[in-house]
């Protein structure tokens, strides 16, 4: 399996450790507030949690880890299959099944709950597809109706159970928001089995799941049983939602499916890495939820887990190396800055060209006139050039001298621009007065190879469509000084 390659696993592990540290440091701020209200000895609780002497802590922790892993794994497929809200709907739809399972022998028997919830969920899936097939209602409406209808039946049953003499003590209301502390040994065993099952299915049928998720048409053509795989996935999903109920609650289970997987989706392009990350994030969210809800007597687990997952998502959203908003903004900024610098260099070149390269310095006023901008604007641009080592400033910043680097860049930008203009007029038959705008954009992104190719195709032409010389490599290398000393300046791009 490619996912077991060492370096990737190590990188993922380091990332998880970092994120874990963040989440562990975060409580100190929140802690004081909860502590005041709950009137608990805070340090004791934390100690109890981490020493894990308490079996209920061990069960809660183990359960949270299991549910995080299985939800993360299956959630990844949900997210890439664009079925996120199917997950949401069907996790609400299990409530009547949970209530029915409870009625079976009037106690929270894990097996009965499991069977009831799974049946309710599959029934919900069937009703959604039936509504979609036989009416003109769209999928979102069908999902919303099944969600609400099933949930309402569940609510009615739960309130009826609570009105029974024995019902009130049953703790069935814990299924709404979850209470990890109520996880029993039987629950943990069930969770372990389901998690193992999910991991096994994902490992053994990785290829099948991958191909049906990304290209169902191709998978069908290649003879994969697409429907069967789809239903297997839905069944596994039903299992993992059901085992999560105890800890997360009906209402927020879908977040455990969607959020860790979406965070992983922002960080990587490879499915196996996404699965690993999502499972890790799910685990992290699970542990943090169990930890926080342990701190206060009436704090529900589910919302804290979900919030943990949301924090991970927010971090990925802002600081993800490739798709993060901050990184995107940074790339955008630096690109905009580079374009600005190159335009300034080009203008300096034009000024120099205008006086036939006599005299090396360009004054701010000349540049401002050329760019049709104010002195202040040009001044900041000049300072930017200086900071990048492309120019030096003299006479209190009023005179700009290009450094060899700056000269090189200015020439190559002008060369890109003029070559492109020529190419458009020659090859694409565009009128000479229409090519400037296009060249203005493309000059910043033409690579060295493309420029070589253009030169070849244009047979090393020396004049652009407007009759101005195209700087050649030789001119560039000879430098500005060499140019201005030339007496016979008849298009310095002329080859001898």
């Amino acid at each position: 399996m490619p996912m077991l390659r060492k370096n990737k696993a190590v990188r993922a592990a380091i990332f998880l450790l970092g994120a874990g540290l963040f989440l562990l440091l975060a409580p100190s701020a929140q802690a004081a507030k909860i502590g005041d209200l709950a009137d608990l000895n805070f340090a004791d609780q934390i100690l109890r949690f981490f020493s894990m002497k308490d079996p209920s802590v061990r069960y809660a922790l183990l359960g949270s880890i299991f549910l995080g892993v299985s939800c993360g794994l299956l959630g990844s497929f949900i997210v890439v299959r664009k079925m996120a809200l199917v997950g949401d709907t069907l996790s609400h739809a299990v409530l009547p099944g949970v209530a029915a399972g409870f009625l079976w022998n009037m106690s929270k028997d894990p097996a009965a709950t499991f069977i009831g919830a799974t049946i309710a969920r599959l029934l919900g899936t069937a009703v959604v597809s039936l509504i979609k097939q036989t009416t003109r209602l769209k999928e979102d409406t069908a999902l919303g109706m099944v969600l609400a209808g099933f949930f309402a039946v569940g609510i009615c049953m739960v309130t009826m159970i609570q009105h029974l003499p024995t019902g009130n003590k049953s703790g069935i209301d814990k299924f709404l928001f979850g209470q990890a502390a109520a996880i029993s040994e039987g629950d943990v065993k069930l969770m372990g089995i389901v998690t193992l099952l999910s991991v096994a299915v994902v490992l053994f049928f990785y290829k099948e799941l991958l191909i049906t998720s990304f290209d169902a048409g191709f998978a069908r053509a290649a003879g994969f049983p697409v429907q069967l795989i789809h239903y297997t996935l839905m069944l596994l999903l039903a299992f993992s939602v059901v085992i999560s109920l105890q800890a997360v609650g009906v209402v927020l289970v879908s977040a455990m499916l969607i959020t860790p997987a979406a965070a992983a989706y922002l960080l990587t392009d490879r499915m196996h890495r996404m699965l690993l990350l999502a499972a890790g994030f799910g685990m992290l969210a699970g542990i943090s939820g169990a930890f926080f809800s342990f701190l206060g007597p009436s704090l529900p687990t589910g919302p804290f887990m979900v919030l943990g997952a949301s924090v991970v998502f927010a971090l990925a959203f802002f600081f993800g190396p490739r798709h993060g908003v901050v990184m995107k903004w940074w790339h955008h900024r630096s690109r905009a800055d580079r374009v600005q610098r190159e335009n300034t260099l080009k203008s300096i070149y034009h000024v120099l060209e205008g006086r036939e390269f006599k005299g090396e310095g360009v004054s701010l006023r000349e540049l401002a006139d050329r760019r049709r901008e104010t002195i202040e604007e040009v001044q900041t641009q000049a300072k930017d050039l200086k900071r990048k080592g492309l120019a030096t400033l003299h006479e209190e910043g009023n005179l700009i001298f290009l450094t060899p680097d700056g000269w090189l860049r200015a020439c190559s930008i002008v060369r890109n621009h003029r070559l492109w203009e020529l190419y458009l007029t020659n090859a694409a038959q565009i009128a000479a007065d229409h090519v400037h705008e296009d060249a203005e954009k493309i000059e910043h992104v033409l690579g060295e190879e493309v420029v070589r190719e253009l030169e070849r195709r244009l047979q090393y032409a020396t004049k652009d469509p407007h009759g101005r010389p195209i700087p050649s490599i030789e001119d560039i290398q000879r430098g500005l000084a060499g140019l201005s000393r030339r007496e016979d300046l008849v298009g310095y791009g002329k080859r001898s």
Partner: protein
Amino acid sequence: MNSLVPPFDLQQFFLGPWNGDVAGSNFWIVLMGFLVTTACGLVGNYLILRRMALVGDAISHSVLPGIAIAFLISQNRGTLSMFLGALAAGVVTTVIIEIIHKKTRVKQDAAIGIAFTSLFAIGVILISIYTSQVDLDQECVLYGEIAFVPIEPPVKFGGVVLGPLPVVRMGIVAALTILLIWVFYKELLVSSFDPGLALSLGINATLVHYALMSWLSVVVVSAFESVGAILVIAMLILPGATASLLSDRLPVIMGMTVVHAALSSILGVHLATWLNCSSAGAMVVMASVLFTLAWIFSPHDGLIRRFVFRRFLRHEAPAVAEIS
């Protein structure tokens, strides 16, 4: 098992809710249910048309932190602060969904899922931490307490007792909903069906979108107390979906939405009295039953009609084709 479902007695089922001392409070419950379902259903029609049914779900969850924070800041259950909190929450949800969906490659459905679960989680946590200060409990958040509506302080206007505060408030919201839909009927219609045409007519589709979302959060928050976060979604979608199985014309659909609202709230109270369960839940159950009936029996698009039509195609149509 026997003690769970009381024996069914037809007379008791129909007369039970209107028996002597409970009749008064049941009247207010039915009226409240009707107003909530009408207001939600009318707004919901547009959500269905715009394929944003699940955005309604999202907003109905995410007004919770708005309400909780408004409670914490203003320290009372004032109507105004609650509305403002919910409005802010609704707009924030819409913006978060848009940002996640536009700035990253996460698809819209996942963006909805992330946004509302996070906000809802924040709301639940706030409520459970500040239980003593926020006059809401966790279960109430989910399925509301419509049974408390009749005992709310009554509102007097010019010496005349109008009714309990939530009912009066919901009545105003429902009336405003109808008024707004009437005034902006064209804008809503055009921008829902054909955004391109809306643009060429000079209608700002983005503005309409945000306005609809804002009004949705107002409706949701005023319905929140009585039906809770999750059942609001039922009230938003079920009436419109039922009506759209029965007709093609938007005005007819609107009318049927109101009929559906009345039927489901009355039947819901009957069901709740019989089974001794949550009234709001029972109303939604009855609304789903009505939907199922429409689904099966609709003369337009119903299952039976489809079945008959398919049989006709299989058996009769070939014969007809042969003759001609």
